[in-house]
């Protein structure tokens, strides 16, 4: 763990004002006392130990830190933890239980939708929101929806296939 991370974990000192936030994370109510400047990504990773949310570029470009905020994909490095007070947040850990896979996770496994895996949680959450809004997307629609998420292994081909695989699986599940 880097020095910066440790610094923020030790904060806040006694004289620094904090706010209590209460957030429903992956269906479970969590509370924390945070400095207003703490980013949502860091609250999730360091206070709640949900390290599936990756901080990639830290500049709002890459989308690796994407989480669902009241069901909508947001970049958690570009939101303050205090802004999540009273809201629902879903991270990649919340897609399925610990011993099962969500169809989107199955799709990434089946279609080899990851290489290094760093962008994968963000891709999966952006895809989850897409398939909720549009259960039968075209390839173009998948590419459009994922265009805020960067994969530096350049594995987009298989990422798109994975999401289309998941769409089919989810449709057959809802049909049966």
């Amino acid at each position, binding site marked *: 763990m880097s020095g*910066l991370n440790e610094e*923020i974990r030790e904060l806040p000192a006694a004289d*620094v*004002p904090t*706010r209590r936030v209460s957030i429903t994370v992956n269906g479970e109510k969590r509370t924390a006392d945070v*400095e*207003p*400047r703490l*980013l949502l990504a860091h609250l999730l990773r360091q206070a709640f130990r949900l390290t599936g949310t990756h901080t990639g570029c*830290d*500049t*709002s*470009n890459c*989308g690796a830190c*994407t989480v669902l905020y009241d069901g*909508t*994909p*947001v*970049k958690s*490095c*570009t*939101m*303050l933890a*205090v*802004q999540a*007070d009273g809201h629902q947040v879903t991270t990649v850990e919340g897609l399925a239980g610990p011993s099962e896979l969500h169809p989107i996770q199955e799709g990434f496994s089946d279609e080899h939708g990851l290489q290094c895996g760093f962008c994968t949680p963000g891709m999966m959450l*952006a895809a989850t929101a897409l398939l909720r809004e549009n259960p039968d997307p075209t390839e173009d629609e998948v590419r*459009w*929806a*994922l*265009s*805020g*998420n960067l994969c530096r292994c350049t594995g987009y081909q298989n990422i798109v296939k994975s999401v289309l695989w998941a769409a089919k699986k989810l449709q057959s599940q809802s049909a049966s």
Partner: protein
Amino acid sequence: MYPSRFRYEAPRSIDEAIALLRDGGGEAKVLAGGQSLVPLLKLRFAAPELLVDINGLPGLDYHTADPDGTIRVGALCRHADLERSAILPGRQPTMAAAAPLVADPIVRNRGTLVGSLCHADPQGDWASVVTALGGHVVAQGTNGRRSIPIAEFVSGPFQNALGYDEIAVEAVIPAPKGTAAGGYLKLERRVGDFATAGVAVALELSGAVVTRAGIALTGVGGSTIDATDAAQALVGGPLTADGIRGAADLAAQAARPRTDHRGSAEYKRHIVRTFVERILTRAMQSTRESGQT
């Protein structure tokens, strides 16, 4: 990256928010979508003492069309709301074309049109669109409400005309007289990058005759460029291939691009010329197809 320390308030009413800004005495910033402000805080280009988060204010997430066609966009209307709008297509083609091109899909879920105007980035798409459309911004502060034309509102690069106790609550796009036409085109190296160049064109047509035109340029100068000469050249007659080429040349002349890693000044000027020509040619074709010549 971590922002400097600041105090955070999440008021529940606009009056409470304005009181916080007034008491902040110029050291407070309004947080709406945060998609430009939070990165600036993280880079410590901005270090306000107080953040006033307006996301909890009720009734600001709208975009509506008045019966006469005036479009109003509230301070918490996200880019994604405009991208999915049922109101804009057919009614306001320049805005409809721009909404899906702002940043990337995830940023569009949070960022707001009004916030983009306040941020006044020369690379911002909405300032060009609202400039081409001749819109204005409604500010609310201690002394009530006032309406600020966009040319005054965007007072310079990253500068707006708001008083420190004022919140931009609404952007207003006047109703077109006749038929609205136009569009927005942007060249970017990849989705979400700042514009290499962008062009907004807004026309009002009476039959085939252009009665009003606005052309504004993104990312090719120290601030949003209002290419008034180019626009004015179109007014008073129908769109013609020669007229379009003339306007495109004037727009390219109005651009003040700088050579950088996104391209040479010459290249960006060429993009401006091409985009103006492309948008106007499409408008001319659709006018002819609808039998208005």
